[in-house]
């Protein structure tokens, strides 16, 4: 390996919601931290395609680490939102029982919630359920209400965390896939697939679906991360069937079931299904599974119409066994495993950041508070949220706020330029950062404009513009 490669106290492998939280937490201390990610942008793994629920603390027994971290993590979201300005609301969660015999499971959830300390959790009669959510099927027999549950835009959460971490000195390297690692007695020498190298005293393995490979590569524990796919439908914000709260069916032992999620941004998400997959890159959707999603959703809210569907997609849950696996490796030196982060990983992630920091501290990492630490990231104005007069003022300062690029989600050129300048240089990256291409036309009108802005801002050629990194080139020639 090359001499003179950069040296870090901690290298976090994987910029999903776990890696991002860990890196940001560590950025509070006098440490050199790097966050490396194999994809072209952060949050392109499991963390981009999930239900985006900040769970209500009633699904899992307290004996599990995931349950304890879920409850702690959920409580941190209000402060994080204030610091980081990402879309999050505590809209509340309902579990709707459609048969009397399901009410027994609901009671169990209730007891568990009380045991876990879920604030405000209540058992609901049929009337109470319909009062809380009038769009529910009149066949509902009763259920559970967890007012503390909420919804978040997961990729925006990750983007903000990473931005904050970078602001406080963390080095982000995208397109950096860990391929080699050797322990040199006092530190790791790490190599990327494309031949770059780094040195690190500690490595945190937060590689999601590939945490098993990363562990093997570093001589750590031998475990297998399995994938379980979940397929979703997304409905237009114009749908008449948008509930005010997240609606769950009564869960089974295998999964939390297919839900109806009123996303923070106004659309509605239906899903996910749960099927085991061999291929962890198989994000395809199938007609059968999607039909199941629609039928299940209609069972809860009968008004849901397939004519409101604007897109479908799939996410893959990573799991090892029943619980998270977050430990200092017993086999490899200087390695922390953050693996098998299944649901409720998103909810738990802020607590995972704290937990990993504590593990490192106990293992001997010296933590000295950084005096200049600034937890805030500047708030970005979004045209969609502004009234006429505010928008007028903004355009006076920056005319690019007067150029509507994405008409469906009302995203202006100024916001796209800002996304590109902050490093989101793929069409998907711009999409997740700004929402442009995410609305009802799914980019039919604005994709060419975004391509042109990316080219102009970065100096890339047409043949370098991709949907989400190498291999996904958008244009194949010039006339």
């Amino acid at each position, binding site marked *: 390996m090359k001499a003179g490669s950069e040296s870090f106290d901690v290298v976090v492998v994987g910029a999903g919601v776990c890696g991002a939280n860990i890196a940001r937490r560590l950025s509070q201390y006098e440490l050199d931290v790097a966050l490396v990610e194999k994809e072209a942008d952060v949050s392109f793994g499991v963390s981009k395609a999930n239900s985006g629920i900040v769970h209500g603390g009633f699904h899992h027994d307290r004996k599990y680490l995931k349950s304890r971290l879920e409850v702690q993590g959920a409580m941190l979201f209000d402060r994080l939102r204030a610091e980081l300005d990402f879309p999050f609301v505590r809209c509340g969660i309902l579990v709707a029982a459609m048969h009397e015999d399901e009410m027994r499971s609901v009671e169990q959830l209730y007891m568990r919630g009380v045991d876990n300390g879920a604030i405000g959790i209540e058992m609901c009669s049929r009337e109470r359920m319909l009062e809380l959510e009038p769009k529910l099927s009149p066949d509902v027999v009763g259920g559970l209400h967890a007012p503390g549950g909420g919804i978040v835009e997961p990729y925006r959460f990750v983007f903000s965390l990473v931005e904050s971490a970078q602001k406080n000195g963390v080095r982000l390297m995208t397109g950096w896939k860990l391929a080699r690692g050797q322990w040199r007695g006092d530190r790791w020498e790490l190599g990327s697939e494309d031949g770059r190298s780094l040195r690190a005293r500690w490595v945190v393995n937060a590689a999601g679906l590939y945490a098993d490979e990363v562990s093997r590569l570093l001589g750590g524990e031998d475990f297998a991360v399995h994938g379980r796919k979940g397929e979703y439908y997304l409905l237009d914000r114009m749908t008449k069937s948008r509930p005010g709260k997240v609606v769950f069916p009564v869960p089974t032992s295998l999964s939390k079931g297919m839900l109806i999620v009123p996303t923070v941004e106004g659309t509605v998400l239906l899903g996910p299904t749960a099927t085991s997959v061999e291929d962890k890159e198989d994000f395809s959707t199938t007609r059968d599974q999607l039909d199941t999603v629609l039928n299940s959703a209609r069972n809860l809210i009968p008004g849901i119409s397939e004519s409101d569907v604007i897109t479908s997609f799939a996410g893959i849950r990573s799991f090892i066994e029943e619980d998270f696996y977050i430990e200092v490796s017993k086999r490899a030196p200087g390695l922390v495993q953050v693996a098998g982060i299944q649901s409720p990983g998103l909810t738990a992630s802020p607590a995972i950041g704290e937990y990993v920091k504590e593990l490192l501290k106990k293992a001997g990492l010296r933590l000295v508070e950084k005096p200049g630490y600034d937890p805030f990231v500047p708030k970005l104005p979004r045209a969609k949220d502004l009234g006429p007069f505010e928008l007028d003022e903004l355009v006076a300062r920056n005319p690019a706020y007067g150029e509507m690029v994405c008409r469906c989600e*009302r995203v202006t050129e100024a916001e796209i330029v800002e996304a590109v300048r902050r490093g989101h240089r793929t069409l998907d990256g711009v999409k997740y950062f700004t929402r442009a291409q995410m609305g009802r036309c799914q980019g039919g009108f604005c994709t060419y404009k975004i391509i042109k802005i990316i080219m102009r801002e970065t100096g890339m050629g047409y043949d370098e513009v991709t949907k989400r990194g190498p*291999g996904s080139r958008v244009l194949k020639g010039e006339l």
Partner: protein
Amino acid sequence: MRELRYDAVVVGGGAAGMAAALALDSRGKSCAVVDREPSLGGILLQCVHNGFGLIEFDEELTGPEFAERFAARLADSRIATFLGATVLEIAEEGEEKLVFCVSPSLGGLRIRARAVVLAMGCRERNRGNIRIPGTRPAGVYTAGLAQRLVNIEGYVPGKDVVVVGSGDIGLIMARRMSWIGCKVHAAVEILPYPSGLARNIVQCLRDFSIPLYLSHLTTSVYGRDRVEGVEVAPIEDGALQPEKSFRIPCDTVLLSVGLVPENELSKGAGIELNPTTGGPIVDSTLMTSRGGIFACGNVLHVHDLVDYVAEEARRAGLFAADWLEGRRPRKELRVKVGPNLRYVAPGKVDPSRENKLYMRTMIVKNEALFEARLDNAVVKSVKKAHIQPSEMLSLSLGPAELERARPDSMLELSIQ
């Protein structure tokens, strides 16, 4: 914020918006056209092929040429144009409408007017709308986006193409992609008949030996980062035959699966929409459920020929001028959509004058009989050599047919 006042505001400067504005101007009304794009013309600007204007100008023009003729007339008129300005909201304040727009050069702009003509055109349905499962790689485009990339931006979206659907834009793009040296492997249509114009099937597919798979469902898109192909299965006697499915390798999928009127603004203004057309419900004067707000062109219902768009829009402009002069229809008859028709626009007629109605059928038929009945008595019947859903039909009805109409009479149109 700046504020301006006109008699009327036209939202959208495509064929419909320009024609409506010219009509208003011809009646001496002051009028502004607002379009978000930097030039007038709308979708016409990317349709560089021939086939526009046969009715309007009695010659075959390209889309941009057609647009240019209208734009030139606007330039010679008193009509104010605001380009690069997006209309965000239409509100009402007493008798007046407030049209709020934003543009980089003007910032926020509020236009007051007593009449508004909606001419926002339509948008393409996409993959999600028709729910094609599979992977989500680069290389899936709506045909209109591909048309824009090729004809205006000068880029080739891909080399090996499959067109899903058989709408006109897809057919025209099949030909365009062949011309620029790409290979178009197939067009796949779920229905037993094409959804584009007959002339386009011949000129864009047959002339290029591109196979058209009718009654075939696109069951999946595959490929991880970039499209590698589509999977297609036949439909026989109404049932999908998954065991007969096959793959067509390609790197690009162009979707041409229908258009939907762009009515987000209309919804925001509280205008009632027709669930069949996706456009506003209008009376015999093309006025929406909000008094003083009119609609025409593709925002009202999807047209296949620009000449019909211009004709309809001109009437909308004249009706808006009537409204400004305080004239209202005296009595109106509701039009009932009878057998084999999908919709009729507008849904009302004024028996005291000539009315032009546009409609679409639901069937493919030779030697069809097109009938209008007033209280069950046939008042007009027209023979059609051939009808199909993709070709819009029109019918004129006036005092000659409707003189005996009573206030509670029923007018029904049908295809037999």
